[in-house]
């Protein structure tokens, strides 16, 4: 009961403000499309205080009343805007910002740029510029959010070419990927070569990897927030692209001018045409994927805003090789989100959401005369409400409550292929459903204690119930900032997190055979404690941002499949899992240039991650599979002219760890079905794949042309992925001669130099 009272505390403060102070609130939007500008900075020029617009473009702060006040609004890629307003009473503003790309001639910026990366009491947070996502070279001309995420400090990719990402020593499942607040459990297409997010429909991307504010929970390592565009409220617009793998189209426009809008974006693959040409004799391949994003929003007065968004993505693939690997798979995500923004007075912003998401994956694989079947499904029903309350210029209080009902359906099986070829099938209707409920209350405050010191502190109380077991925890969160100068600061954070759903990874199979399971009496929630310390410094009027962060993270109740455990239908998955702990520490350097003709970043991470399980590796510590000592990314985009932009990416990382036997023994009294040669392992993940590196280039040519007397923008993007054709390892397997029993190691490399081309248009 106390918790509920605490969570509704902000209501109690929405009383009329003191006559000495006024509250300025409002929405920051794109001038042309009226799209919300997530994260736009608002600075009070008189009092040198400021805030940032939230996920809906809303901001609110309280200042002493004055005759006039100068507000400065900044957002990367947009003209800085200074507004003088009469400030003798509470004001609700609508601020429209102009995209620099739409301006004629040279843009001259006179006002100060935002230094919020330095001055905000948050660390481990990176806003990923959509411009970078659109410019940087990618595989086969397909723009991809997740591939860019992998280039950020503290983040690394998984297997070659895939979009999975690993943050600060955490496993894949420790990242919460949310599209308009709905969890996307598998944000991949084409086995992870591409993500499910269509860049044209995305407004904002933010990665949080440490110093988590209290409103975030449920995962140990990162939160990836992807916000869809709301749709152009002023005019109809269409854009699209034709690539080697897929075509996409996005249509948006007003439902009621400047009040409501819609956006529909769809993408569909046409890979089968390429596969037909590329396929070898004895091989047959087919692959189809599509995704659809749709969103509607409606402004019901100045205080209420309604959103309805929908996403569906689907993949179907089959690959048959007469000699070795065969698979068929289907997987898909569907999400639906209804949101209601309401403004209580001028100081309290609320968002209430109802979210549904449905994910399922069915995989049938055979390799070396063995086959594996896997089905995993997660259905979530979520209701949540969040409040942001700004009682004084010094405090921003956030509180809220969330309830999620999870329904998981895991099933898996592996065995040798029967002589008659009749493989078992998983009847998805008969899979035992695992129901559980997750709740969380939180309360946090961002307090600017002085001009130099500010602190973001809070508490989150998650509660998880599954049949026969209830878990509840207290998660303290704190991030502090001490300004050294207006352009430099030192920050420190402490975070405690818990996670109730687990993805159990398989370390040996070349293809993904991961399966989601909920916490239970035996499988306890994963937990982490993370400390981080950072130094942040901006140069050249905040056009160059730099940071150095060090972190230390402990992870408990980590899960892996036990040695020799075999997936079987109707076998309790808990009995196949072993439990242990993990530890990760590292240092991350980030140098980012945001403006000018040359933009990009350099990111370097040194880290070490180990795991220790009582029932694995003789109980000794071993390296995490993606323990990579050095990870370096360099990205650069150079605008040669109004038409041409050149971009490049270089990525390097130490090879990931994997297990190789070091010796062999020959027995005379073991089972005679096999030859009696066995392996000696000296350690789990004892070898390293060769290091990963590649260089990509792209060149884009943008031009405004006339078609049927109407102007439209067209863009050609030419790219080369892995320019020097580095044979990066995808996975290693052993071939064992049945008669001589001598093993040979083979490395599978997937992506050599690959040219790409795509054509994009917008009108």
């Amino acid at each position, binding site marked *: 009961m106390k918790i509920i009272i605490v969570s509704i505390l902000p209501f109690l403060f929405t009383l009329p403000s003191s006559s000495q102070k006024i509250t300025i609130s409002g929405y920051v939007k794109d001038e042309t499309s009226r799209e919300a500008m997530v994260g736009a900075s608002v600075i009070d020029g008189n009092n040198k205080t400021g805030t940032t617009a939230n996920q809906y473009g809303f901001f609110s702060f309280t200042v002493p009343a004055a005759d006039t006040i100068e507000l400065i609004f900044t957002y990367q890629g947009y003209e800085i805007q200074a507004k003088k307003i009469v400030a003798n009473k509470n004001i609700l503003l609508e601020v429209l910002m102009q995209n620099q790309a739409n301006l004629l001639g040279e843009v001259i910026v006179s006002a100060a740029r935002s230094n919020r990366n330095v001055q905000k009491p948050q660390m481990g947070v990176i806003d990923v510029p959509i411009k970078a996502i659109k410019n940087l070279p990618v595989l086969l001309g397909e723009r991809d959010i997740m591939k860019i995420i992998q280039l950020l400090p503290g983040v690394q990719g998984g297997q070659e070419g895939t979009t999975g990402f690993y943050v600060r020593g955490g496993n894949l499942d420790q990242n919460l990927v949310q599209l308009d607040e709905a969890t996307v459990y598998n944000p991949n297409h084409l086995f992870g070569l591409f993500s499910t997010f269509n860049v044209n429909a995305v407004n904002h991307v933010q990665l949080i990897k440490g110093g988590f504010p209290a409103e975030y929970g449920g995962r140990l390592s990162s939160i990836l927030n992807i916000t869809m565009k709301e749709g152009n409220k002023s005019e109809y617009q269409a854009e699209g692209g034709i690539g*080697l793998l897929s075509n996409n189209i996005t249509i948006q426009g007003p439902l009621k001018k400047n009040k409501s809008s819609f956006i529909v974006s769809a993408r569909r693959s046409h890979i089968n045409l390429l596969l037909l*040409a*590329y396929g070898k004799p004895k091989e047959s391949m087919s692959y189809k994927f599509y995704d659809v994003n749709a969103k509607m929003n409606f402004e019901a007065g100045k205080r209420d805003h309604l959103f309805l968004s929908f996403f569906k993505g689907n993949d179907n693939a089959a690959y048959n090789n007469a000699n070795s690997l065969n698979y068929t798979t289907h997987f898909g995500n569907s999400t639906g989100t209804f949101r209601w923004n309401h403004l209580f007075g001028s100081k309290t912003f609320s968002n209430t959401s109802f979210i549904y998401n449905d994910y399922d994956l069915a995989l049938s694989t055979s*390799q070396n*005369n*063995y086959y*594996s079947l896997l089905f995993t499904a997660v259905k979530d029903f979520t209701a949540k409400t969040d409040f942001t309350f700004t009682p004084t210029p010094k405090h921003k209080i956030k509180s809220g409550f969330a309830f999620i009902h999870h329904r998981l359906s895991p099933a898996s099986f*592996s*065995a*040798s292929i*029967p*002589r*008659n070829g*009749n493989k078992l099938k998983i009847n998805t209707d008969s899979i035992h459903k695992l129901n559980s409920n997750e709740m969380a209350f939180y309360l946090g405050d961002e307090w600017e204690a002085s001009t130099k010191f500010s602190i973001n502190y809070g508490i989150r109380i998650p509660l998880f119930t599954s049949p026969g077991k209830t878990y509840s925890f207290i998660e303290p969160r704190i991030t502090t900032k001490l300004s050294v100068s207006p352009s430099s600061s030192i920050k420190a954070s402490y975070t405690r997190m818990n996670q109730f759903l687990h993805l159990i990874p*398989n*370390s*040996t*199979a*070349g293809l993904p055979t991961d399966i989601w399971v909920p916490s239970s009496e035996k499988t306890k929630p994963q937990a982490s404690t993370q400390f981080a310390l950072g130094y942040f410094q901006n140069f050249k009027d905040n056009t160059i941002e730099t940071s150095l962060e060090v972190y230390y993270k402990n992870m408990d109740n980590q899960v892996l499949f036990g*040695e*020799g*455990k*075999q997936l*079987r239908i109707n076998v309790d998955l808990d009995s196949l899992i072993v439990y242990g702990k993990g530890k990760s520490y590292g240092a991350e350097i980030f140098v980012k240039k945001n403006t000018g003709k040359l933009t990009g970043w350099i990111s370097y991470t040194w880290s070490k991650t180990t795991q220790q399980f009582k029932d694995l590796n*003789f109980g000794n510590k071993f390296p995490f599979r993606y323990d990579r000592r050095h990870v370096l990314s360099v990205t650069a985009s150079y605008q040669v002219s109004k038409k041409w932009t050149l971009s490049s990416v270089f990525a390097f990382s130490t090879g990931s760890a994997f297990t*190789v036997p*070091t*010796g*062999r*023994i*020959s*027995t*005379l*009294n*073991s*089972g*005679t*079905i*096999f030859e009696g*040669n*066995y392996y*000696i*392992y*000296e350690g*789990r993940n004892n070898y390293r794949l060769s290091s990963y590196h590649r260089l990509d280039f792209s060149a884009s040519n943008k031009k405004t042309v006339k078609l049927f007397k109407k102007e439209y923008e067209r863009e050609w993007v030419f790219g080369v992925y892995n320019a020097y054709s580095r*044979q990066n390892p995808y996975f*290693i*397997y052993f071939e064992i001669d*049945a008669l001589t029993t*001598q*093993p*040979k*190691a*083979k*490395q*599978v*490399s*997937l*992506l*050599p130099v690959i040219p790409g081309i795509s054509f994009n248009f917008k009108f």
Partner: protein
Amino acid sequence: MNCKKRIWLFVACFMSGACKKDISIRFPEQHNSLVFIEGMLYPGKVPAINISTSNPFFSSKITPQQVFARGAVVTISTGSVMDVLEPDSAFNNFRCRWEPFYRGHIEAEYGKTYTLEVSYAGKTYKTSTSIDQKKVTIESIVYTAEFFDVYGGHDGMIIKFTDHPGSKDYYRFQMNRIIDNSVKHAHVLDGFVNTCTGANELFPVKDIGRIIFTDENADGQKMTMSIEVTYEYEKDDEGWVFIQSLDKNAAEFYKDLDDQLQAIYNPFVEPVFINSKIPGAIGVFGSAVLSDSVLFVYPRDHP
């Protein structure tokens, strides 16, 4: 170059670039060689101990002769009686190769505890086993053309017997057959061609089951073994079937080996590390008590 030619050139570039490649790679040899000791005592039989050295994983040394630990001093003692074992070898007619081992002179006896001591390359390894497992009686053997277990679908036989109550027991299958070189291995060695024995030249083979059965949750109850056999057969072929009652060490060690095999061949199973039962070395010194044998006649040809 016309437009059509340009398109074809581009498609050709793409096709030549995008492909999966399997590349042979070499690993540095980082193996600290271990002594491997495998000794199973059977009441009424003289000890035969397999002592070899482990080899780097990718080494081309593969035959038992190449890895045999020559020059080891091997003793087995019980009470005041000590048996000094000597190097010997037996010819494996199916694999056409000599398999060396250390042979004792004194038959093992039920109810006794034996200590094995091996001195090799300046190190000494010592371990013990007791032969006190209870012998079981096979109650029935039925042929099956197809059964399914965790390893997949197989042909073989279903054996029933009753477990002794009050103790934790471990069992595995054994069948002795007399075959000639026309009989093929039913599994990984099915491509092996026997050239060392002549047509219709008979020789014995021992088929040892891979699975270790336990009486966990079935103490004192009727037990069923579904057995996948090693060698192919024809209708009316005969074999003498036994059940080995294993001691705990041997059971755990051979279970580890079987689990490891499963992981080696099934790419969806995590690697299994072998837990040695002999300090400082790798291996096991255990014992097995055989049931009385039962003659089994195959009712049909191998499927």
